[in-house]
């Protein structure tokens, strides 16, 4: 019965979204209709949330009469993974998408009080129409609450690889990010219809962009972290189509974040900013399509269905197509906005946008090129990490090199020589760090040392900018303190995000170039070395888990004779589906990690049991995950800036 209520709620949500689109659409002329449209947005959200709760309930109580639950759950699964199973499948994840979409629609209705009534009505209306498209797809083509005629006794369980805390949280963050850009899309469409893309518009769009971007950053980081410790070979980024699918909206969203600043502060580049606003959600939808349709082969596509891919592609084409058609029609009429000199903050942000767009194009090409070549009748080609290392990395390197200059330049006409004078210290620190690393760390690697130098360049560059703003070491102490505490949160957010990028660059350079790998078949009491660490296999025992059986090795890790960690990596065999996974053990050592995997059982030299033990010493690997986290926190801090509150925008605009 509950499941039927859920199905009903889903249809209700579709109807409410349609009402939202229509009422708010006409609400441009009538306050009453606009209010009704907002009510419909809240109703659509409530109904979708209800349907989602029903699905989670079905998973929690293991109602195998629901096809989706039978395919993805199991009675013996721990509760948290039963709940996470609700978004572990295609149908469930589409419902999660709809949930986010209606939630953002409702959020605009509730928090958008400061917006001009006409613009708000249009945004709510477009958001409603997006809701119609995706809810219709969910109801008619991918119903997560469909019943089975023959109810199985037991479910087929969720892929054990997905039974993991980081991955349970990964889709909600990722989708909150993806779908957050739908609001930006709606604002772009509404602004284009109104013919009003100006500083005030950019100010209203920016908080939504920041929120979506921060959430997407967290989502991607969680996914990468999961791949790092769950897939068992210590890699954290594979340039896999599914990863690229989430990375493209992030890159283009980052470009949007920066170009929206130009539009907000200087009224310049409105056309470009609105183009990026449309493009970002297009890339989000493309990401959803690529992952869910299975047109591309990937290591971790877990819920694919080619026939429904066509439907998703249609939704993508219609939505993006109408957005860009509107853009082509209206953009020529936009006021080009303020002027600026070649050396200015505007120019540096445009350069940022050029490089980020090129980077996005690279990832897009690298992801879709095999399909394009095949469609043109050419050979099938593979595009792997070597391609991205040769194209994407140089672009990013260039972007990182110019990054610290941007915040030091004034708007409109900057003092290039002055900026150079102010940043020489950062350049010196970076150079010294690079040279030191090249001299000290063995084996010697020039490119990796450049990477480390760039990391320091970004971090010290960000600190330089704060010192400039506070006139540290130049003004009296009291003045510095006053300026320091008076810095707006947006400035702190930017500093933190840029530092986070540097922290990430440090970690990535170190880990990718100086990781140490060792593998050996160890019998009991035998040991092996990985870097400066010695590993000794003490014993191997059996573990009876809730839904699996495991072999657990106990490995003592010593450094210079001192015990630093006792590792307990496992090799699990799941009852349902009969798969095996390895549960990696990670010993954190400062910024480094010793990463230990227990492999298959083998015969030792004298016929005794032995286990293939694989271990990595990953230097500075923690920074790879810490960096993006800092960036997301930076985004959140910026978001809490008073200047970004929506109502402030209206007061300014009215004044």
């Amino acid at each position: 019965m509950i499941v039927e209520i859920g199905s009903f709620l889903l249809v209700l949500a579709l109807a409410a979204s349609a009402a939202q689109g229509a009422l708010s659409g006409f609400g441009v002329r009538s306050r009453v209709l606009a209010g009704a449209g907002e009510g419909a947005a809240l109703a659509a959200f409530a109904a979708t949330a209800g349907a989602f709760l029903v699905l989670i309930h079905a998973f929690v109580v293991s109602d195998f009469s629901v096809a989706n639950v039978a395919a993805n759950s199991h009675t013996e699964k721990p509760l948290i993974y039963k709940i996470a199973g609700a978004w572990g499948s295609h149908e469930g994840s589409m419902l999660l998408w709809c949930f986010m979409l209606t939630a953002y629609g409702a959020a605009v209705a509730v928090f958008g009080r400061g917006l001009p009534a006409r613009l708000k009505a249009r945004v709510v209306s477009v958001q409603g129409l997006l809701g119609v498209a995706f809810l219709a797809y969910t109801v008619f083509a991918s119903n997560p609450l469909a019943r089975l005629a023959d109810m199985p006794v037991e479910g087929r369980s969720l892929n054990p690889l997905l039974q993991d805390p980081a991955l349970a949280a990964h889709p909600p963050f990722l989708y909150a990010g993806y779908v957050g850009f739908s609001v930006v899309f709606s604002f772009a469409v509404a602004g284009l219809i109104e013919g009003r893309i100006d500083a005030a518009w950019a100010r209203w769009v920016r908080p939504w962009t920041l929120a979506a971007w921060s959430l997407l950053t967290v989502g991607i980081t969680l996914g990468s972290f999961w791949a790092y410790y769950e897939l068992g070979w210590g890699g954290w980024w594979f340039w896999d189509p599914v990863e690229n699918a989430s990375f493209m909206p992030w890159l283009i969203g980052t470009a949007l974040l920066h170009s929206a600043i130009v539009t907000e502060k200087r009224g310049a580049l409105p056309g470009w900013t609105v183009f990026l606003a449309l493009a970002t959600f297009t890339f989000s939808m493309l990401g959803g399509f690529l992952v869910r349709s299975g047109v591309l082969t990937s290591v971790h596509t877990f819920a694919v269905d080619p026939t429904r891919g066509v439907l998703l592609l249609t939704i993508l084409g219609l939505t993006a197509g109408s957005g860009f058609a509107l853009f082509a029609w209206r953009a020529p009429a936009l006021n080009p906005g303020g002027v600026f000199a070649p050396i200015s903050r505007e120019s540096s942000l445009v350069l940022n946008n050029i490089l980020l767009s090129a980077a996005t194009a690279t990832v897009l090409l690298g992801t879709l090129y095999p399909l394009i070549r095949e469609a043109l009748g050419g050979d099938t080609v593979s595009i792997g990490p070597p391609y991205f290392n040769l194209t994407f990395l140089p672009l990013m390197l260039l972007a990182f090199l110019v990054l610290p200059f941007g915040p030091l330049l004034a708007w409109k006409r900057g003092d290039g020589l002055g900026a150079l004078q102010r940043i020489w210290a950062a350049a010196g620190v970076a150079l010294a760090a690079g040279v030191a690393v090249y001299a000290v760390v063995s084996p010697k690697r020039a490119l990796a040392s450049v990477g480390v130098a760039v990391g320091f360049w970004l971090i010290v560059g960000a600190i330089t900018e704060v010192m400039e703003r506070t006139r540290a070491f130049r003004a009296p102490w009291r003045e510095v303190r006053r300026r320091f505490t008076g810095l707006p949160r947006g400035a702190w957010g930017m500093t933190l995000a840029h530092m986070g990028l540097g922290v990430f660059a440090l970690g990535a350079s170190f880990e990718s170039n100086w990781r140490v790998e060792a593998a050996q078949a160890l019998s009991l009491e035998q040991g092996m070395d990985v870097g400066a660490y010695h590993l000794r296999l003490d014993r191997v025992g059996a573990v009876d888990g809730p839904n699996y059986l495991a072999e657990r090795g106990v490995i003592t890790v010593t450094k210079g004779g001192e015990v630093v960690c006792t590792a307990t990596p496992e090799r699990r065999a799941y009852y349902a589906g009969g798969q095996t996974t390895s549960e990696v053990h990670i010993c954190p050592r400062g910024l480094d990690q010793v990463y230990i995997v227990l492999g298959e059982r083998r015969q030792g030299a004298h016929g005794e049991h032995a286990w293939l033990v694989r271990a990595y010493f990953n230097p500075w690997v923690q920074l790879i995950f810490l960096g993006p986290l800092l960036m997301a926190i930076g985004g959140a801090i910026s978001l809490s800036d008073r200047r970004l509150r929506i109502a402030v925008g209206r007061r300014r605009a009215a004044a």
Partner: protein
Amino acid sequence: MKRLLLAIAAVFCIAAASDPAERLSDPSQEARARTLFREVRCLVCQNESIDDSEAQLAGDLRKIIRQQVAAGRSDAQIRQFLVARYGEFVLLKPPFSAGNLALWAGPFAVVIVGGLLLLFLLRRRSTAEALSEDEEARLAALLQNRDE
């Protein structure tokens, strides 16, 4: 479902190249072989190099490449051999060929086009900003008035 199974099978193909049973005795040759492995696709896996894959075919390919490295063949020769046998699909780094022109030139074309657009923008702006002769004269007069 078949695809799903394939995906799962692929996931369990994990970092196999470091297996001690397979290694070459000469460490420099082994290092060369490992570098090559990272550029070669495991054809039956979903999207992995043979360095990572535990699939049977990946193991066979590793053996062949190790043998060829030990026999003293160059990286280029080994790549050629693989392409002749399996097609371009086997290389994770597509070759610089006419068919791949768009792929390799694309990213840099975007940068160049973007740079040209920026130049155009700056030029148009600066001409729009420049004052006409009349305006210059008026400005001069105004400035003079202020000085007085």
